[in-house]
Protein backbone atom coordinates (compact mmCIF):
# COMPACT_ATOMS: atom_id res chain seq x y z
CA UNK A 1 0.00 0.00 0.00
CA UNK A 2 1.56 3.24 -1.17
CA UNK A 3 -1.07 5.67 0.02
CA UNK A 4 -1.87 6.46 3.62
CA UNK A 5 -4.87 8.56 2.69
CA UNK A 6 -7.02 8.27 -0.44
CA UNK A 7 -9.85 10.71 -0.93
CA UNK A 8 -12.24 10.27 -3.85
CA UNK A 9 -14.87 12.81 -4.66
CA UNK A 10 -15.80 13.52 -1.04
CA UNK A 11 -18.86 15.71 -0.60
CA UNK A 12 -20.29 17.30 2.50
CA UNK A 13 -23.24 19.60 2.89
CA UNK A 14 -24.83 21.14 5.96
CA UNK A 15 -28.32 22.42 6.55
CA UNK A 16 -28.22 26.04 7.70
CA UNK A 17 -31.76 27.18 8.28
CA UNK A 18 -33.53 26.86 4.95
CA UNK A 19 -30.33 26.89 3.00
CA UNK A 20 -27.96 24.07 2.19
CA UNK A 21 -24.33 24.99 2.54
CA UNK A 22 -21.80 22.90 0.66
CA UNK A 23 -18.63 22.52 2.72
CA UNK A 24 -16.88 20.09 0.35
CA UNK A 25 -17.64 20.00 -3.38
CA UNK A 26 -16.42 16.50 -4.21
CA UNK A 27 -12.71 16.73 -3.61
CA UNK A 28 -10.05 14.11 -4.34
CA UNK A 29 -6.41 13.66 -3.38
CA UNK A 30 -3.93 11.10 -2.08
CA UNK A 31 -1.32 11.29 0.62
CA UNK A 32 1.68 8.98 0.28
CA UNK A 33 3.04 6.99 3.15
CA UNK A 34 5.46 9.03 5.25
CA UNK A 35 4.49 12.25 3.51
CA UNK A 36 4.00 15.60 5.21
CA UNK A 37 0.91 16.87 3.42
CA UNK A 38 -0.51 20.35 3.91
CA UNK A 39 -4.04 21.64 3.39
CA UNK A 40 -3.59 25.34 2.92
CA UNK A 41 -6.61 27.60 3.01
CA UNK A 42 -8.52 30.23 4.95
CA UNK A 43 -11.31 29.70 7.47
CA UNK A 44 -14.39 28.27 5.84
CA UNK A 45 -12.41 26.43 3.16
CA UNK A 46 -13.68 23.05 4.39
CA UNK A 47 -10.49 21.88 6.07
CA UNK A 48 -12.11 20.90 9.35
CA UNK A 49 -14.99 19.04 7.68
CA UNK A 50 -12.43 17.06 5.73
CA UNK A 51 -10.41 16.24 8.86
CA UNK A 52 -13.53 15.14 10.69
CA UNK A 53 -14.53 12.85 7.82
CA UNK A 54 -11.06 11.30 7.61
CA UNK A 55 -10.95 10.71 11.37
CA UNK A 56 -14.43 9.10 11.22
CA UNK A 57 -16.24 11.59 13.43
CA UNK A 58 -18.34 12.92 10.55
CA UNK A 59 -20.03 11.04 7.70
CA UNK A 60 -19.56 12.27 4.13
CA UNK A 61 -22.61 12.84 1.91
CA UNK A 62 -20.88 11.38 -1.10
CA UNK A 63 -17.64 9.92 -2.34
CA UNK A 64 -15.28 7.63 -0.49
CA UNK A 65 -12.05 7.77 1.44
CA UNK A 66 -9.58 5.41 3.02
CA UNK A 67 -7.05 6.00 5.76
CA UNK A 68 -4.25 3.48 6.21
CA UNK A 69 -6.17 1.24 3.82
CA UNK A 70 -9.42 1.32 5.80
CA UNK A 71 -12.70 2.77 4.62
CA UNK A 72 -13.77 5.82 6.63
CA UNK A 73 -17.37 4.60 6.88
CA UNK A 74 -17.18 0.80 7.09
CA UNK A 75 -13.92 0.41 8.99
CA UNK A 76 -14.21 3.38 11.29
CA UNK A 77 -13.17 1.41 14.37
CA UNK A 78 -9.92 0.30 12.74
CA UNK A 79 -9.16 3.84 11.67
CA UNK A 80 -9.68 5.16 15.18
CA UNK A 81 -7.01 2.75 16.39
CA UNK A 82 -4.37 3.87 13.97
CA UNK A 83 -4.76 7.62 13.62
CA UNK A 84 -3.95 10.54 15.88
CA UNK A 85 -6.16 13.62 15.65
CA UNK A 86 -5.44 17.02 17.07
CA UNK A 87 -8.52 19.18 16.50
CA UNK A 88 -8.24 22.91 16.05
CA UNK A 89 -10.05 23.49 19.30
CA UNK A 90 -8.34 22.30 22.50
CA UNK A 91 -10.19 19.09 23.37
CA UNK A 92 -8.38 17.50 26.29
CA UNK A 93 -9.79 17.20 29.80
CA UNK A 94 -9.23 20.55 31.47
CA UNK A 95 -9.77 19.11 34.94
CA UNK A 96 -7.17 16.38 34.56
CA UNK A 97 -3.49 17.09 35.00
CA UNK A 98 -0.97 16.91 32.18
CA UNK A 99 0.12 13.44 33.23
CA UNK A 100 -3.44 12.22 33.80
CA UNK A 101 -4.51 13.32 30.33
CA UNK A 102 -1.59 11.53 28.76
CA UNK A 103 -2.07 8.28 30.66
CA UNK A 104 -5.81 8.44 29.99
CA UNK A 105 -5.22 8.48 26.25
CA UNK A 106 -2.52 5.82 26.52
CA UNK A 107 -4.91 3.57 28.44
CA UNK A 108 -7.70 4.08 25.87
CA UNK A 109 -5.39 2.61 23.28
CA UNK A 110 -4.14 -0.22 25.49
CA UNK A 111 -0.69 1.19 25.82
CA UNK A 112 1.37 3.05 28.40
CA UNK A 113 3.32 6.29 28.44
CA UNK A 114 6.53 4.26 28.89
CA UNK A 115 5.90 2.06 25.86
CA UNK A 116 5.89 4.92 23.37
CA UNK A 117 7.82 7.48 25.34
CA UNK A 118 10.54 7.69 22.68
CA UNK A 119 8.05 9.04 20.18
CA UNK A 120 6.80 11.90 22.34
CA UNK A 121 9.95 12.51 24.37
CA UNK A 122 11.07 15.46 22.29
CA UNK A 123 7.79 17.28 22.85
CA UNK A 124 6.80 15.97 26.25
CA UNK A 125 10.03 16.92 28.07
CA UNK A 126 9.09 20.54 27.51
CA UNK A 127 5.88 20.18 29.53
CA UNK A 128 6.99 17.42 31.92
CA UNK A 129 8.02 19.96 34.60
CA UNK A 130 4.31 20.89 34.77
CA UNK A 131 2.96 17.34 34.75
CA UNK A 132 0.91 17.85 37.92
CA UNK A 133 -0.76 20.99 36.57
CA UNK A 134 -4.33 20.78 35.34
CA UNK A 135 -4.58 21.04 31.58
CA UNK A 136 -7.04 23.93 31.87
CA UNK A 137 -4.35 25.97 33.64
CA UNK A 138 -1.73 25.54 30.92
CA UNK A 139 -0.65 28.29 28.55
CA UNK A 140 -1.63 28.03 24.89
CA UNK A 141 1.77 26.75 23.78
CA UNK A 142 1.84 24.11 26.48
CA UNK A 143 -1.71 22.99 25.70
CA UNK A 144 -0.63 22.54 22.11
CA UNK A 145 2.33 20.36 23.14
CA UNK A 146 0.17 18.27 25.44
CA UNK A 147 -2.46 17.80 22.74
CA UNK A 148 0.22 16.68 20.31
CA UNK A 149 1.67 14.25 22.87
CA UNK A 150 -1.80 12.78 23.47
CA UNK A 151 -2.41 12.42 19.73
CA UNK A 152 0.87 10.52 19.41
CA UNK A 153 0.91 8.31 22.49
CA UNK A 154 -0.52 5.22 20.69
CA UNK A 155 2.03 5.53 17.86
CA UNK A 156 -0.46 6.32 15.09
CA UNK A 157 0.29 5.52 11.46
CA UNK A 158 -1.31 8.78 10.33
CA UNK A 159 -1.42 12.01 12.26
CA UNK A 160 -4.09 14.65 11.53
CA UNK A 161 -3.40 18.16 12.77
CA UNK A 162 -6.13 20.73 12.23
CA UNK A 163 -4.67 24.25 12.32
CA UNK A 164 -2.11 23.53 15.04
CA UNK A 165 -0.45 26.92 14.58
CA UNK A 166 -3.43 29.28 14.26
CA UNK A 167 -3.00 32.29 16.52
CA UNK A 168 0.50 31.14 17.44
CA UNK A 169 3.39 33.61 17.20
CA UNK A 170 6.06 33.19 14.51
CA UNK A 171 8.73 31.83 16.86
CA UNK A 172 6.48 29.13 18.31
CA UNK A 173 5.23 28.32 14.82
CA UNK A 174 8.76 27.69 13.68
CA UNK A 175 9.42 25.40 16.65
CA UNK A 176 6.21 23.51 15.98
CA UNK A 177 7.20 22.81 12.39
CA UNK A 178 10.58 21.57 13.54
CA UNK A 179 8.77 19.08 15.77
CA UNK A 180 6.72 17.94 12.77
CA UNK A 181 9.85 17.39 10.72
CA UNK A 182 11.27 15.12 13.42
CA UNK A 183 8.01 13.16 13.59
CA UNK A 184 8.07 12.70 9.86
CA UNK A 185 11.56 11.20 10.14
CA UNK A 186 10.04 8.54 12.38
CA UNK A 187 7.86 7.45 9.47
CA UNK A 188 4.54 8.93 10.53
CA UNK A 189 2.34 10.27 7.76
CA UNK A 190 1.20 13.76 8.66
CA UNK A 191 -1.77 15.69 7.28
CA UNK A 192 -1.74 19.24 8.56
CA UNK A 193 -3.91 22.25 7.80
CA UNK A 194 -2.97 25.89 8.12
CA UNK A 195 -4.18 29.32 7.07
CA UNK A 196 -0.57 30.58 7.02
CA UNK A 197 0.68 30.48 3.44
CA UNK A 198 4.34 30.72 4.49
CA UNK A 199 4.07 27.32 6.16
CA UNK A 200 3.23 25.69 2.83
CA UNK A 201 6.87 25.46 1.79
CA UNK A 202 7.59 23.26 4.82
CA UNK A 203 5.31 20.51 3.45
CA UNK A 204 6.26 17.82 0.92
CA UNK A 205 3.07 18.45 -1.02
CA UNK A 206 0.16 20.80 -0.51
CA UNK A 207 -3.40 21.29 -1.59
CA UNK A 208 -4.58 24.89 -1.82
CA UNK A 209 -8.20 24.82 -0.77
CA UNK A 210 -10.93 27.45 -0.83
CA UNK A 211 -14.70 27.18 -0.37
CA UNK A 212 -14.72 23.41 -0.47
CA UNK A 213 -12.71 23.11 -3.67
CA UNK A 214 -9.08 22.27 -4.28
CA UNK A 215 -7.51 25.02 -6.38
CA UNK A 216 -4.17 23.34 -6.90
CA UNK A 217 -2.31 20.35 -5.59
CA UNK A 218 1.41 19.67 -5.97
CA UNK A 219 4.83 20.16 -4.42
CA UNK A 220 5.08 23.75 -3.17
CA UNK A 221 7.99 24.56 -5.50
CA UNK A 222 6.06 23.22 -8.49
CA UNK A 223 3.07 25.38 -7.64
CA UNK A 224 5.19 28.50 -7.37
CA UNK A 225 7.06 27.68 -10.61
CA UNK A 226 3.78 27.38 -12.48
CA UNK A 227 2.79 30.97 -11.68
CA UNK A 228 1.57 32.20 -15.07
CA UNK A 229 3.10 35.71 -15.09
CA UNK A 230 6.38 37.47 -14.43
CA UNK A 231 5.92 38.89 -10.96
CA UNK A 232 7.53 42.17 -9.84
CA UNK A 233 8.19 43.70 -6.47
CA UNK A 234 8.04 47.48 -6.24
CA UNK A 235 8.37 50.04 -3.50
CA UNK A 236 8.87 53.77 -3.09
CA UNK A 237 9.00 56.29 -0.29
CA UNK A 238 5.21 56.51 -0.17
CA UNK A 239 3.97 52.98 -0.43
CA UNK A 240 0.22 53.48 0.00
CA UNK A 241 0.13 56.22 -2.61
CA UNK A 242 2.24 53.94 -4.81
CA UNK A 243 -0.40 51.22 -4.53
CA UNK A 244 -3.10 53.64 -5.70
CA UNK A 245 -0.94 54.94 -8.55
CA UNK A 246 0.25 51.56 -9.81
CA UNK A 247 -3.34 50.35 -9.83
CA UNK A 248 -4.22 53.38 -11.95
CA UNK A 249 -1.41 52.61 -14.45
CA UNK A 250 -2.94 51.33 -17.68
CA UNK A 251 -0.56 48.40 -18.13
CA UNK A 252 -0.94 46.99 -14.63
CA UNK A 253 -3.03 43.87 -14.40
CA UNK A 254 -2.93 43.58 -10.64
CA UNK A 255 -1.03 45.10 -7.78
CA UNK A 256 -1.33 44.33 -4.09
CA UNK A 257 0.57 44.90 -0.86
CA UNK A 258 3.07 42.26 0.14
CA UNK A 259 5.12 43.11 3.20
CA UNK A 260 7.38 46.06 2.56
CA UNK A 261 6.85 45.81 -1.22
CA UNK A 262 3.91 45.77 -3.55
CA UNK A 263 3.61 42.83 -5.92
CA UNK A 264 2.75 43.66 -9.48
CA UNK A 265 1.81 41.89 -12.69
CA UNK A 266 1.79 43.72 -16.04
CA UNK A 267 -1.03 43.34 -18.54
CA UNK A 268 1.26 43.37 -21.57
CA UNK A 269 4.69 41.96 -20.86
CA UNK A 270 6.46 44.01 -23.53
CA UNK A 271 10.07 45.26 -23.35
CA UNK A 272 9.23 48.80 -22.26
CA UNK A 273 6.95 47.80 -19.45
CA UNK A 274 9.40 48.66 -16.67
CA UNK A 275 10.56 51.98 -18.08
CA UNK A 276 6.99 53.02 -18.91
CA UNK A 277 5.91 52.40 -15.35
CA UNK A 278 8.91 54.21 -13.87
CA UNK A 279 8.25 57.20 -16.10
CA UNK A 280 4.59 57.20 -15.04
CA UNK A 281 5.51 57.08 -11.35
CA UNK A 282 8.15 59.78 -11.57
CA UNK A 283 5.55 62.06 -13.08
CA UNK A 284 3.57 61.46 -9.92
CA UNK A 285 6.44 62.53 -7.71
CA UNK A 286 7.46 59.14 -6.41
CA UNK A 287 11.00 58.92 -5.10
CA UNK A 288 13.30 56.04 -4.09
CA UNK A 289 11.52 53.71 -6.46
CA UNK A 290 12.77 50.14 -6.53
CA UNK A 291 11.36 47.74 -9.13
CA UNK A 292 12.59 44.18 -9.56
CA UNK A 293 11.39 40.90 -11.03
CA UNK A 294 10.86 38.22 -8.37
CA UNK A 295 9.70 34.62 -8.01
CA UNK A 296 6.14 34.07 -6.87
CA UNK A 297 5.43 32.71 -3.39
CA UNK A 298 2.61 30.37 -2.44
CA UNK A 299 0.60 33.37 -1.28
CA UNK A 300 0.95 34.98 -4.72
CA UNK A 301 -0.24 31.74 -6.31
CA UNK A 302 -3.20 31.59 -3.95
CA UNK A 303 -4.17 35.16 -4.78
CA UNK A 304 -3.83 34.37 -8.49
CA UNK A 305 -6.02 31.28 -8.13
CA UNK A 306 -8.70 33.24 -6.27
CA UNK A 307 -9.16 35.60 -9.21
Amino acid sequence: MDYSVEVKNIKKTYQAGKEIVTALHGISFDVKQGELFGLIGPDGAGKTSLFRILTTVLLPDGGSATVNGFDVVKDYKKIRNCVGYMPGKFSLYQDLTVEENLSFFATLFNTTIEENYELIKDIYVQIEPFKTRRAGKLSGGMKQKLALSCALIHKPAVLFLDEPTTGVDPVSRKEFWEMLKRLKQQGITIVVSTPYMDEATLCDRIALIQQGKILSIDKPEKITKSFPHQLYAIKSAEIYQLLKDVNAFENSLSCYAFGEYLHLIFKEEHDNRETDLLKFLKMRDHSDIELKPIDASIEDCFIELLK
Partner: protein
Amino acid sequence: MHRSKIVSLNYSSKMSGEIVIQANQLTKQFGDFIAANSITFEVYKGEIFGFLGANGAGKTTAMRMLCGLSSPSSGQATVAGFDVRTQPEEIKKNIGYMSQKFSLYEDLTVAENIQFFGGIYGLSNKHLKAKSEELINQLGLQSAKGQLVGSLPLGWKQKLSFSIAILHQPKVVFLDEPTGGVDPVTRRQFWDLIYQAAESGITVFVTTHYMDEAEYCNRISIMVDGRIEALDSPSGLKKRFNVSSMDEVFYQLARKAKRSDN
Protein backbone atom coordinates in the same frame (compact mmCIF):
# COMPACT_ATOMS: atom_id res chain seq x y z
CA MET B 1 -2.81 68.24 -2.19
CA HIS B 2 -4.32 64.96 -1.16
CA ARG B 3 -0.95 63.23 -1.16
CA SER B 4 -0.78 60.12 0.92
CA LYS B 5 -1.13 61.16 4.50
CA ILE B 6 -0.45 57.60 5.45
CA VAL B 7 3.13 57.08 4.59
CA SER B 8 4.23 60.54 5.44
CA LEU B 9 2.97 59.83 8.95
CA ASN B 10 6.34 58.54 9.93
CA TYR B 11 7.55 62.05 9.69
CA SER B 12 4.69 64.53 9.74
CA SER B 13 2.56 63.18 12.57
CA LYS B 14 5.49 63.33 14.95
CA MET B 15 6.01 66.90 13.93
CA SER B 16 2.35 67.80 14.22
CA GLY B 17 2.75 65.85 17.39
CA GLU B 18 -0.77 65.17 18.53
CA ILE B 19 -0.42 62.27 20.93
CA VAL B 20 -3.44 60.00 21.13
CA ILE B 21 -2.05 57.22 23.30
CA GLN B 22 0.56 57.83 25.93
CA ALA B 23 1.79 55.10 28.25
CA ASN B 24 4.29 55.93 30.95
CA GLN B 25 5.85 53.04 32.88
CA LEU B 26 2.54 51.24 32.66
CA THR B 27 2.63 48.07 34.76
CA LYS B 28 0.23 45.27 35.59
CA GLN B 29 1.09 42.69 38.17
CA PHE B 30 -0.88 39.56 39.08
CA GLY B 31 0.62 38.26 42.33
CA ASP B 32 4.31 37.69 41.61
CA PHE B 33 3.75 37.75 37.88
CA ILE B 34 4.43 41.00 36.08
CA ALA B 35 2.35 40.73 32.93
CA ALA B 36 3.21 44.20 31.62
CA ASN B 37 6.42 45.62 32.98
CA SER B 38 6.83 49.39 32.95
CA ILE B 39 5.96 50.00 29.33
CA THR B 40 6.40 53.47 27.92
CA PHE B 41 5.41 54.61 24.45
CA GLU B 42 3.39 57.14 22.46
CA VAL B 43 1.08 56.77 19.50
CA TYR B 44 0.25 59.71 17.25
CA LYS B 45 -2.99 60.77 15.61
CA GLY B 46 -3.72 58.93 12.40
CA GLU B 47 -0.87 56.54 12.93
CA ILE B 48 -1.07 52.80 12.29
CA PHE B 49 0.73 51.33 15.26
CA GLY B 50 1.60 47.61 15.27
CA PHE B 51 1.70 46.02 18.70
CA LEU B 52 3.65 42.79 18.34
CA GLY B 53 4.94 40.15 20.68
CA ALA B 54 5.04 36.41 21.23
CA ASN B 55 2.06 34.65 22.82
CA GLY B 56 2.16 35.52 26.49
CA ALA B 57 4.41 38.56 26.13
CA GLY B 58 1.76 40.76 27.75
CA LYS B 59 0.04 42.32 24.72
CA THR B 60 -3.51 41.51 25.80
CA THR B 61 -2.88 42.79 29.33
CA ALA B 62 -1.48 46.05 27.99
CA MET B 63 -4.33 46.43 25.54
CA ARG B 64 -6.94 45.80 28.25
CA MET B 65 -5.42 48.58 30.34
CA LEU B 66 -5.44 50.97 27.39
CA CYS B 67 -9.10 50.18 26.70
CA GLY B 68 -10.05 51.01 30.28
CA LEU B 69 -10.95 47.39 31.05
CA SER B 70 -8.23 46.75 33.60
CA SER B 71 -6.65 49.17 36.04
CA PRO B 72 -2.83 49.38 36.06
CA SER B 73 -0.87 48.29 39.14
CA SER B 74 1.42 51.27 38.62
CA GLY B 75 2.36 53.82 36.00
CA GLN B 76 0.04 56.00 33.93
CA ALA B 77 -1.58 56.04 30.55
CA THR B 78 -3.89 58.34 28.69
CA VAL B 79 -5.96 57.36 25.68
CA ALA B 80 -7.75 60.01 23.61
CA GLY B 81 -6.89 62.45 26.38
CA PHE B 82 -8.43 60.42 29.22
CA ASP B 83 -6.70 58.71 32.10
CA VAL B 84 -7.04 54.93 32.04
CA ARG B 85 -7.17 54.76 35.81
CA THR B 86 -9.64 57.52 36.61
CA GLN B 87 -11.67 57.92 33.41
CA PRO B 88 -12.16 54.42 31.98
CA GLU B 89 -15.76 55.12 30.99
CA GLU B 90 -14.74 58.15 28.94
CA ILE B 91 -12.14 56.02 27.20
CA LYS B 92 -14.69 53.37 26.27
CA LYS B 93 -16.81 56.04 24.56
CA ASN B 94 -13.88 57.33 22.55
CA ILE B 95 -12.40 54.11 21.25
CA GLY B 96 -13.45 51.27 19.01
CA TYR B 97 -12.48 47.68 19.65
CA MET B 98 -12.47 44.62 17.51
CA SER B 99 -11.08 41.16 18.19
CA GLN B 100 -10.97 38.03 16.13
CA LYS B 101 -12.91 36.04 18.68
CA PHE B 102 -15.91 38.14 19.53
CA SER B 103 -17.06 40.81 17.23
CA LEU B 104 -20.70 40.78 16.22
CA TYR B 105 -23.94 39.07 17.17
CA GLU B 106 -24.28 36.08 14.87
CA ASP B 107 -28.04 35.83 15.43
CA LEU B 108 -28.70 39.39 14.33
CA THR B 109 -28.72 40.51 10.72
CA VAL B 110 -26.12 42.82 9.22
CA ALA B 111 -28.47 45.82 9.54
CA GLU B 112 -29.48 44.88 13.09
CA ASN B 113 -25.86 44.64 14.22
CA ILE B 114 -25.13 48.08 12.82
CA GLN B 115 -28.21 49.49 14.54
CA PHE B 116 -27.40 47.78 17.82
CA PHE B 117 -23.79 48.90 18.07
CA GLY B 118 -24.54 52.36 16.74
CA GLY B 119 -27.20 52.70 19.43
CA ILE B 120 -24.77 51.61 22.13
CA TYR B 121 -22.34 54.28 20.99
CA GLY B 122 -25.07 56.85 21.22
CA LEU B 123 -25.66 57.65 17.54
CA SER B 124 -29.08 59.17 16.90
CA ASN B 125 -31.55 57.16 14.83
CA LYS B 126 -31.38 59.62 11.98
CA HIS B 127 -27.60 59.69 11.93
CA LEU B 128 -27.53 55.93 12.30
CA LYS B 129 -29.77 55.37 9.31
CA ALA B 130 -27.52 57.40 7.05
CA LYS B 131 -24.35 55.81 8.44
CA SER B 132 -25.80 52.36 8.11
CA GLU B 133 -26.63 52.81 4.45
CA GLU B 134 -23.27 54.36 3.73
CA LEU B 135 -21.49 51.46 5.37
CA ILE B 136 -23.51 48.78 3.63
CA ASN B 137 -22.86 50.39 0.27
CA GLN B 138 -19.19 50.87 0.96
CA LEU B 139 -18.75 47.20 1.82
CA GLY B 140 -20.95 46.06 -1.06
CA LEU B 141 -23.25 44.27 1.37
CA GLN B 142 -26.56 45.50 -0.12
CA SER B 143 -27.77 41.99 -0.91
CA ALA B 144 -26.68 40.64 2.47
CA LYS B 145 -28.27 43.40 4.55
CA GLY B 146 -31.04 41.16 5.90
CA GLN B 147 -28.84 38.11 6.33
CA LEU B 148 -27.78 36.81 9.72
CA VAL B 149 -24.19 37.69 10.44
CA GLY B 150 -23.52 34.06 11.40
CA SER B 151 -24.09 33.02 7.79
CA LEU B 152 -21.52 35.42 6.31
CA PRO B 153 -18.04 34.24 5.32
CA LEU B 154 -15.36 35.09 7.89
CA GLY B 155 -13.76 37.73 5.71
CA TRP B 156 -17.05 39.61 5.41
CA LYS B 157 -17.66 39.36 9.12
CA GLN B 158 -14.27 40.82 9.85
CA LYS B 159 -14.71 43.72 7.45
CA LEU B 160 -18.17 44.45 8.81
CA SER B 161 -16.95 44.15 12.36
CA PHE B 162 -14.16 46.64 11.72
CA SER B 163 -16.53 49.10 10.07
CA ILE B 164 -18.88 48.86 13.03
CA ALA B 165 -15.99 49.39 15.45
CA ILE B 166 -15.35 52.76 13.80
CA LEU B 167 -18.99 53.66 13.17
CA HIS B 168 -18.89 56.35 15.90
CA GLN B 169 -15.65 57.85 14.51
CA PRO B 170 -13.58 56.99 17.60
CA LYS B 171 -10.21 58.62 18.12
CA VAL B 172 -8.55 55.23 18.41
CA VAL B 173 -9.50 51.77 17.24
CA PHE B 174 -7.94 48.70 18.87
CA LEU B 175 -7.69 45.65 16.64
CA ASP B 176 -6.71 42.36 18.25
CA GLU B 177 -5.53 39.95 15.53
CA PRO B 178 -8.22 41.09 13.12
CA THR B 179 -7.08 39.00 10.16
CA GLY B 180 -6.33 35.59 11.68
CA GLY B 181 -7.54 32.83 9.35
CA VAL B 182 -8.74 35.24 6.66
CA ASP B 183 -7.87 34.49 3.02
CA PRO B 184 -5.03 36.51 1.45
CA VAL B 185 -7.22 38.62 -0.81
CA THR B 186 -9.68 39.56 1.94
CA ARG B 187 -6.76 40.22 4.29
CA ARG B 188 -5.53 42.89 1.88
CA GLN B 189 -9.01 44.39 1.50
CA PHE B 190 -9.14 44.55 5.27
CA TRP B 191 -5.91 46.52 5.31
CA ASP B 192 -7.39 48.92 2.75
CA LEU B 193 -10.08 49.65 5.31
CA ILE B 194 -7.41 50.24 7.95
CA TYR B 195 -5.59 52.70 5.68
CA GLN B 196 -8.82 54.56 4.93
CA ALA B 197 -9.60 54.81 8.63
CA ALA B 198 -6.12 56.16 9.35
CA GLU B 199 -6.49 58.63 6.51
CA SER B 200 -9.69 59.91 8.10
CA GLY B 201 -7.69 60.61 11.28
CA ILE B 202 -8.50 57.52 13.32
CA THR B 203 -5.49 56.13 15.13
CA VAL B 204 -5.12 52.38 14.59
CA PHE B 205 -3.60 50.14 17.25
CA VAL B 206 -3.26 46.62 15.88
CA THR B 207 -1.83 43.25 16.91
CA THR B 208 -1.01 40.59 14.36
CA HIS B 209 0.99 37.40 13.91
CA TYR B 210 1.43 38.07 10.20
CA MET B 211 4.83 39.65 9.75
CA ASP B 212 3.98 40.96 6.29
CA GLU B 213 1.24 42.99 7.98
CA ALA B 214 3.77 44.38 10.44
CA GLU B 215 5.31 46.03 7.37
CA TYR B 216 2.07 47.92 6.72
CA CYS B 217 2.32 49.73 10.05
CA ASN B 218 3.95 53.15 10.44
CA ARG B 219 5.66 52.03 13.61
CA ILE B 220 5.85 48.79 15.54
CA SER B 221 6.60 47.84 19.09
CA ILE B 222 7.71 44.34 20.01
CA MET B 223 6.99 43.05 23.49
CA VAL B 224 9.11 40.34 25.11
CA ASP B 225 8.37 39.03 28.61
CA GLY B 226 6.24 42.00 29.58
CA ARG B 227 8.62 44.69 28.31
CA ILE B 228 8.77 46.66 25.09
CA GLU B 229 12.09 45.55 23.64
CA ALA B 230 11.99 47.48 20.40
CA LEU B 231 9.98 50.34 18.92
CA ASP B 232 10.57 51.88 15.52
CA SER B 233 9.39 51.94 11.92
CA PRO B 234 9.68 48.57 10.13
CA SER B 235 12.63 49.81 8.10
CA GLY B 236 14.31 51.24 11.20
CA LEU B 237 14.00 47.91 12.98
CA LYS B 238 15.38 45.96 10.03
CA LYS B 239 18.32 48.30 9.85
CA ARG B 240 19.00 48.07 13.56
CA PHE B 241 18.98 44.26 13.53
CA ASN B 242 20.74 44.15 10.20
CA VAL B 243 18.21 41.80 8.62
CA SER B 244 16.01 41.94 5.54
CA SER B 245 12.61 40.95 6.93
CA MET B 246 10.39 41.67 9.93
CA ASP B 247 10.20 37.94 10.45
CA GLU B 248 13.89 37.91 11.32
CA VAL B 249 13.58 40.96 13.58
CA PHE B 250 10.78 39.25 15.45
CA TYR B 251 12.69 36.00 15.65
CA GLN B 252 15.81 37.63 17.04
CA LEU B 253 13.86 39.40 19.76
CA ALA B 254 11.24 36.85 20.69
CA ARG B 255 13.39 33.75 20.83
CA LYS B 256 15.07 35.25 23.91
CA ALA B 257 11.73 35.17 25.69
CA LYS B 258 11.73 33.18 28.89
CA ARG B 259 8.00 32.91 29.24
CA SER B 260 5.39 31.87 26.74
CA ASP B 261 1.64 32.29 26.54
CA ASN B 262 -1.11 33.74 28.66
